[in-house]
């Protein structure tokens, strides 16, 4: 393999700066001791991080976001595992169409989904409820769960299951003792990817959240619409730090390329 030349490395360096600059600036500004947006030239201060505690709505929104992510991705995995097994191993009429339907939330703009859910939930009388949030998030994260479970399911040699059957295992036992352990990596990474996408979702959620049930990204978005100050930078910095920690943990546990490469939206 040939090496990258100096020009290529300069290009790469600039690109890395471009990718990291907006995240770094948020973290730096969050440490300002001033009452307005500025770089902490007088030394770092934690005043804006302490100020978050005075805004319980951020804390509550964070808690609700975690619950929402956990619930919706768990339900999504519960629906995706049997569907993935069916798609991976059977040829049945409508198979292509059903797969496309399950993947469609990636294609439909989230604004449109938000509007559709807002209209639908208003009509059936669950608008602004946590149940509505969970249902809508299940839909948008199913493609992520399905794609990774599907990839894992395609990899299974069916003769392994046939071997288990020949040794006297019943359908349920085969699933529990053979199939599930084999697709487990796909299930776990599918759940994680679903949970992360649920946690970050803002475009659709902004339509169906209510003051009583609001997620952290929506809360932040609404705050920024009014004004941008060091407080929101501090909240964002916490989020970025959390994500960075999660990222390193995921990379150690699974390897990021396995989790994402070839699984970009589309």
């Amino acid at each position, binding site marked *: 393999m040939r090496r990258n030349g100096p020009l290529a490395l300069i290009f790469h360096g600039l690109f890395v700066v471009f990718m990291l600059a*907006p995240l770094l*600036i948020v973290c730096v500004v969050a440490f300002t001791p001033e009452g307005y947006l500025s770089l902490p030239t007088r030394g770092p201060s934690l005043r804006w991080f302490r100020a978050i505690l005075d805004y319980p709505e951020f804390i509550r929104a964070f808690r609700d976001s975690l619950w929402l992510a956990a619930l919706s991705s768990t339900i999504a995995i519960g629906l995706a595992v049997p*569907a993935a097994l*069916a798609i991976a191993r059977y040829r049945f009429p409508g198979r292509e169409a059903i797969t496309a339907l399950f993947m469609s939330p990636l294609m439909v703009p989230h604004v*449109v989904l938000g*509007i559709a859910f807002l209209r*639908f939930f208003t009509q059936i009388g669950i608008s602004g409820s946590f149940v509505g949030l969970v249902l809508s998030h*299940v839909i948008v994260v199913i493609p992520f769960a399905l794609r990774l479970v599907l990839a894992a399911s395609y990899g299974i040699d069916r003769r392994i299951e046939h071997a288990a059957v020949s040794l006297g295992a019943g*359908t349920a036992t085969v699933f529990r003792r053979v199939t599930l352990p084999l697709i487990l990596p796909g299930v776990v990474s599918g759940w994680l990817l679903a949970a992360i996408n649920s946690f970050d979702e803002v475009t659709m959620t902004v339509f169906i959240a209510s003051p009583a049930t609001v997620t952290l990204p929506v809360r932040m978005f609404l705050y920024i619409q009014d004004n941008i100050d060091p407080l929101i930078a501090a909240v964002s910095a916490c989020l970025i730090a959390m994500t960075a920690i999660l990222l390193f943990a995921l990379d150690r546990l699974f390897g990021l390329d396995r989790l994402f490469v070839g699984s970009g939206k589309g």
Partner: protein
Amino acid sequence: MSLAVTERNAPFLLTGPALLVFLGLVIVPLGMTVLLSFYDWGQYKGIVPEFTLKNWIEVFTDSYFFEIFMRTFRIAILVTLAAIVIGVPEAYILNRMSPAWRSAFLLVIIGPLLVSVVARTLGWALLLGSTGLVNQGLISLGVIATPLEFMFTETGVVIALIHVLIPFMILAVWASLQRLDPQIENAALSLGAGRVTIWRRVILPQIVPGILSGSIIVFALAASAFASPAIIGGRRLKVASTLAYDEFLNTLNWPLGAAVATLLLVALVLITVGSNRLIERRYAQVFE
């Protein structure tokens, strides 16, 4: 027992639950939205379930809407082109790195995908503001005298969206680079081809499908982006999705908002499905 799982009914039993959820929560709500776009609305009477084409006529004839849709399209095209110009070389550079460096920089490229788009756009708002780092830097370097206007401009929105969406382009191109025969460059080299020729005649033609599928993803996501245009563009610089948002949550003219959303959906589906078909037909015989 009729409920026994057999090879024949298993696929339907297994996909059944998800299928029911999708019918109830995707097909029905989307259908209702399309229907809503044909309803009447008045400032005082609210939504009136009477069939009318007035929302659609308004969307198609009012130059205000035309301008917003054209802007959305322009931004999406610019973001896609920039993602190609920056993302393709970056993917190539990444592919030539040693595995250790590559996975380190993959973190840098994929990482931002996991950070809420609100936090990322906030970063660009801080950088691009009239007193932001970019303007301060350019002024102190003497490149410009007065701050450049990024906030509430298309340039600002495009920059923020490139940052948000370029990982998708890099991942798509990188995936197709990985499918290249690792010896293919050496093969071309041994036949007498130079650097530029190898790129133009050997590498590029093979990764075009990756670039195109990356472009479709980036274009679709840029055209339907909401948070970045809303924060950087503000109320002054509307795109299709922020327009629909305003109609729904500020003006409360839901039927008109529904018409805007339906048009956005239909346009995107036509463009993405159409270009997918085109790519498949063009490259069917070369790439299985």
